[in-house]
């Protein structure tokens, strides 16, 4: 860990060969990154996030059944009991030859177990030939759904703040605070990309998306840190080099590693997507597909967005201090 020079023999290899100029179009990259993030956020707001009931609160009951079932009659029967409009959806069952019917509705206090029991009893009595059987159920009161969402948000904010502090301390040699904040900006870039992809594909915002967000949180920051680490090391090796030169060298040295690591992670998620599609358990697609987009964005943002935004920030700081 110590970076003290012992003998020249112990020094790590210095960069040889061509150094790519990552900082050439600094302004352009920053503007594009900001525009992309803003455009995606606007897109997300316009299209609207389709919150799953674990966040929004509400009730969703799925029953398996056989034979023909009058879905309108089921809906009416259910509405009589729960007292709010019920939306009804049917589908084929995964496990057997039967079918499934899904009732969903949102009510102020949710459907507690007593009333759910009542509803199931009433439906099985009203439609005795269809052998209705509860398959899945999910009931969340709007209050606890909101609380979960808020707690997720707070957890992410706390994690982000701690990461900025950690980076600021560990990378104090190369101006840690700004580096930390830029790494969080790159992270937002990736999160927004994954969220936008999930909305584009019509997935609802559910526990899988939470897992995607958490995974990207870890992956994106790690990617950025590996590059910062190279910049920090180059600072010791080339004390006279400008920040732009250090960033260009660091990114060039890390390029191969970034691409190779990304091939394994993105490849794994592509394999997951294909297997899941082939086997029919498509509920996992809402995990693997947004993650692929987040990972692609993460590879790009760690090489361009984080270091370049940071260099632009530092450049502006210098200009200001000169004035």
């Amino acid at each position, binding site marked *: 860990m110590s970076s003290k020079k012992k003998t020249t023999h112990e020094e790590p290899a210095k960069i040889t060969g061509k150094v790519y100029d990552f900082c050439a179009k600094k302004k352009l990259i920053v503007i594009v990154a900001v525009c992309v993030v803003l455009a995606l956020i606007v897109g997300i707001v316009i299209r609207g996030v389709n919150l799953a009931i*674990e966040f929004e609160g509400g009730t969703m009951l799925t029953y398996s059944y056989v034979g023909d079932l009058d879905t309108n009659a089921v809906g009416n029967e259910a509405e009589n009991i729960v007292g709010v409009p019920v939306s009804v959806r049917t589908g084929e069952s995964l496990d057997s030859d039967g079918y499934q019917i899904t009732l969903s509705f949102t009510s102020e206090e949710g459907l*507690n*177990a007593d009333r759910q029991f009542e509803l199931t009893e009433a439906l099985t009595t009203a439609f005795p030939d269809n052998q209705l059987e509860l398959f899945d159920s999910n009931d969340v009161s709007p209050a606890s759904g909101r609380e979960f969402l808020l707690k997720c948000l707070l957890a992410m904010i706390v*994690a982000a703040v701690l*990461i900025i502090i950690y980076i600021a301390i560990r990378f104090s040699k190369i101006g840690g605070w700004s580096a930390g904040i830029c790494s969080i900006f790159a992270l937002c870039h990736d999160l927004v990309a994954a969220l936008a992809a999930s909305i584009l594909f019509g997935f609802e915002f559910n526990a899988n998306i939470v897992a995607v967000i*958490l995974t990207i949180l870890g992956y994106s920051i*790690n990617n950025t*840190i590996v590059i910062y680490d190279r910049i920090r090391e180059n600072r010791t090796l080339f004390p006279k080099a400008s920040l732009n030169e250090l960033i260009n060298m660091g990114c060039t040295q890390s390029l191969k590693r970034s691409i190779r690591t990304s091939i394994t992670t993105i490849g794994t998620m592509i394999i997951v997507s294909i297997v899941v599609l082939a086997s029919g358990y498509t509920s996992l697609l809402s995990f693997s597909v947004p993650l692929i987009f987040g990972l692609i964005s993460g590879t790009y943002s760690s090489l361009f967005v984080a270091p370049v935004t940071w260099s632009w920030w530092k450049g502006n700081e210098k200009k200001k201090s000169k004035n």
Partner: protein
Amino acid sequence: MKKKTRKSTFFIVVAFIVLFTVSTVTGLDYLYGDNTTTVIKGVNDIRLGIDIKGGVDVTFAPADDYDATDEQLDAAASKIKTRLAALGINDNEIYSDNKSDRIIVRFPWQAGESEYDAEEAVKELGEMAELTFRKGTDSETDDDGNTVPTGEIVLTGDDVDKAGYTQQPDSNGNLEWVVTLKLTNGEGGGTEKFAAATAELNGTSTPISIWMDNTMISYPTVNSVITTGEAVITGNFTEESSKALADQINSGALPFKMVTTSFKTISSTMGEGSLDAILLAAYIAFALIAVYMVVLYRLPGFVAVIALIGQIAGTLAAITGWFGFMPGSTLTIPGIAGIILSIGMGVDANIITGERIKEEIRSGKSLDSAIRIAYKRAFSAILDGNITNVIIAIILMGAFGVPSSFFSQILNKTVFFMFGATTEGVVYSFGFTLLVGVVCNFIFGVFAAQLMVKSLSRFKAFQNRKLYGGDTK
């Protein structure tokens, strides 16, 4: 300082990883007589979360915004536990959250019990189940339209020492199911109270009514004074319903009725199918990554594959509870995502060092110093990247852990003070596997891999620089 890694080190490390992996996967149990004693749990014993195995996840809160004390809530949680045991559900998790007056209950489907009626079970769990014997059958209708008994209370469930169920002949000589009660003895006990009440009502037309919460079960008239402390409840029971009532009485009444604020049942077919799909994808992905690493990095790549196997085994071992000092955990789908992320970090660590070794070798250093410098230099990047993931994992474990867990104790009282403990165990599972995976990454991906590469590089056969990605020299 220049102490060289021995040649034998490689074999010791590999033997350790192989033993560790095999014992983690197969577990260790022995047969003594007819009993199998499990010393180490294998992969097949992993507790799967209800999102994989299917099951019930329910949160109870006191009905009508009743403000429960901590003692009442804990008492209620232990009563619910007893009731679950009476239903034969022993594999369950129950947490009481004193801050927001909630009780969280989770249980997976019992093996082979797909027909289980979860709705009925959960409904029964939240019932107050307060047994009362009352003078007369008087009742009134409260504001909500419920029938509420008003007769003077003779006995409550607390006066019952033990309830049972049996068959006895009814007035026509047919066998019927009944619930038998053995009342408590001693000063002010059930036996004494019941004797006094039966003496008072003996020969009158006023019956003693027996209520379970707001439902009247029966109302026998008193024909004799009962001083033996034994009573029988009749009332059109079947074997199941008499057992259920006896179980309810034995597990005692909740201090208040509890209703569900969230209630989730998940069928088993859905989850198991997706687990198979994930496992298949994992095998394919791992095989491809192994080939990829060996092709790109040759000898260090081969070592990386061994290290990755160790890392995966380490994560699984933590989940099964292989390490005696820490309890196992439940594996959920986000937990699998955590494993994927930590394996990704492990692959990344090996790619970083693999690239470094190449760079150093190509700059013309000796094999020894190239390997040494590469590991030393790569470490700071791996350290910082992994520590940030540790931060994330700890925050998640704190925010979404069960109320009694270590990180949750700290964080829920400080950062998340305005929130109650949450019901989302799935996010906790992600934090757990990520944290364990990152720790294993340091042990296997950094430490063990380094030992193996250094040790192998001492063999003449492995000193060809090409094996480390060097140029043709």
